């Protein structure tokens, strides 16, 4: 057999071997899947686990007690101490998380309040601008009048505003006074 022929037949042999192996494993796989899915396997694995637990359980408490005594004698923290500490830390974390949530809520409220205030300021500014425009519009025809006239007009306005502010102060004071018979 030539070298080329040998090479040509080699992969086929490997492929055949692989195929054979895969078929064998597939058969095994099917069989074992059925087996582990059976009631008898559940029973057997349960019994094995149970006997392991039965064998290990009696050693658990004495071992734990011995460890506890040793650690106490050495003035070292026990696993129960660590567990307690871990619980405390988790509670602290939760409290911090609650505070974080509250701060988030407050931040949201503040942002919302700031937005409302901004909107109100913008409204007030628009209103002021409108009033100023109206005043300018009123003032423009007055420019045509004689210079003495504006002073004559302005005096009654000032007086009127003083009167209004006096009324307002009196009203505020009345509102502050507590009524008789009420707390």
């Amino acid at each position: 057999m030539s070298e080329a022929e040998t090479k040509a037949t080699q992969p086929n042999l490997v492929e055949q071997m692989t195929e054979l192996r895969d078929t064998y494993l597939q058969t095994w796989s099917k069989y074992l899947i059925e087996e582990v899915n059976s009631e008898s396997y559940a029973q057997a694995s349960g019994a094995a686990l149970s006997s392991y637990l039965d064998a290990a359980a009696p050693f658990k408490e004495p071992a734990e007690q011995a460890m506890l005594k040793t650690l106490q004698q050495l003035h070292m923290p026990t696993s129960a101490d660590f567990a307690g500490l871990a619980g405390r830390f988790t509670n602290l974390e939760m409290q911090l998380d609650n505070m974080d949530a509250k701060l988030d809520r407050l931040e949201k409220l503040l942002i919302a309040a700031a937005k409302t205030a901004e909107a109100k300021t913008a409204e007030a500014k628009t209103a002021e601008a409108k009033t100023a425009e109206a005043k300018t519009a009123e003032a423009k025809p007055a420019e045509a009048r004689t210079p003495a006239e504006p002073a004559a007009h302005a005096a009654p306005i000032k007086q009127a505003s003083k009167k209004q502010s006096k009324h307002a102060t009196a009203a505020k004071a009345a509102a502050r006074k507590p009524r008789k018979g009420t707390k």
Partner: protein
Amino acid sequence: MAQAQTVTDPLITLEERLKTITKVMTSKAPIAQTPKELVWTLNKAKLFRYTPVVPQEKRHRIPLLLVFALMNRPYILDLRPGNSFVEFLVQRGFDVYLLDWGSPGPEDSHLKFDDYTLEYIPRAIRKIKAISGVEEVSLLGWCIGAILTTIYAALRPDDGLRNLILLTAPLDFSNKDQLTFSRWVDEKYFDVDKILALFGNMPAETIDYGAKALKPVENYIGNYLKLWDNVDNPQVVASWHAMNTWIKDNIPMAGGAFRQLIVDLYRNDRLMKGELIIRGERVDLSRLRANLLTVIAEGDHITPPCQSEPVMAKVGSRDKEAYRVRGGHIGIMAGSGAVKHTWPHIEKWLASRSS
């Protein structure tokens, strides 16, 4: 001379192969490499936010929280660059968060589904809302993570949960004939209190044995033969190495939660019957109103399709879809077909509901 070479060449090849095998079986692959930031912690749990790579204006508005099972590490969702569900989503403009439960210690043996669903998940979601500035959120739960997210979604339907994605969700335990685990943990054979009295938490090794024993030949022999057959293919070796790193990295399950899984779910099917009580509240699946996508693996031997399908009839969601995909419990999300089928389907479904 030529004859000597013919003898030594196969030996050198064999040596190289053995070196590769030893290396991948005794070392840890670099996993979970998508850049992320720790944004919140509680006890052992950690919430990570993956660094967005898409500009904010092109990102989906609603953030997504990934919740994995309690007894395995969650980095299966971010296995390795080029084969990472997280990386896939981040590149497509999702704001992705991952809740890593961590490994429970003896001090956590009291933790129950009650704690996970009504303390940890709601607090993590609150943090996500605060970070993202969005009042809605999407949740993806896988395996036991799907049980937790379903319970949360049913108990807190007004908490802003827009979308719920369940992957291989074991929710219905009524079909005992098809559930091997159900048979193993039957009260006739399995004393859950005895095992928890000895260990506190359910040991990782026992859970791992249980999962592997369902398909013993595939897990104990076939897996290694796959490596042997493909040892000259660096891509397959890298993939196998990453997966093996994850498979070997098991964690125990908190005793309280394990007892609920066995007694309330496997033995008494209380969730589907509407009898499951969490912190005094009955879990009523009809109250679950979030848009729902449940991904079912047709070849899943851990969670057969009969466990995931019936929930569709019980939930109150108007927008719901069951998506069946070929593959096993882990393969549908981490196998070679995941990037072609499962991930694009989830991405498409979620993208249209995340604006």
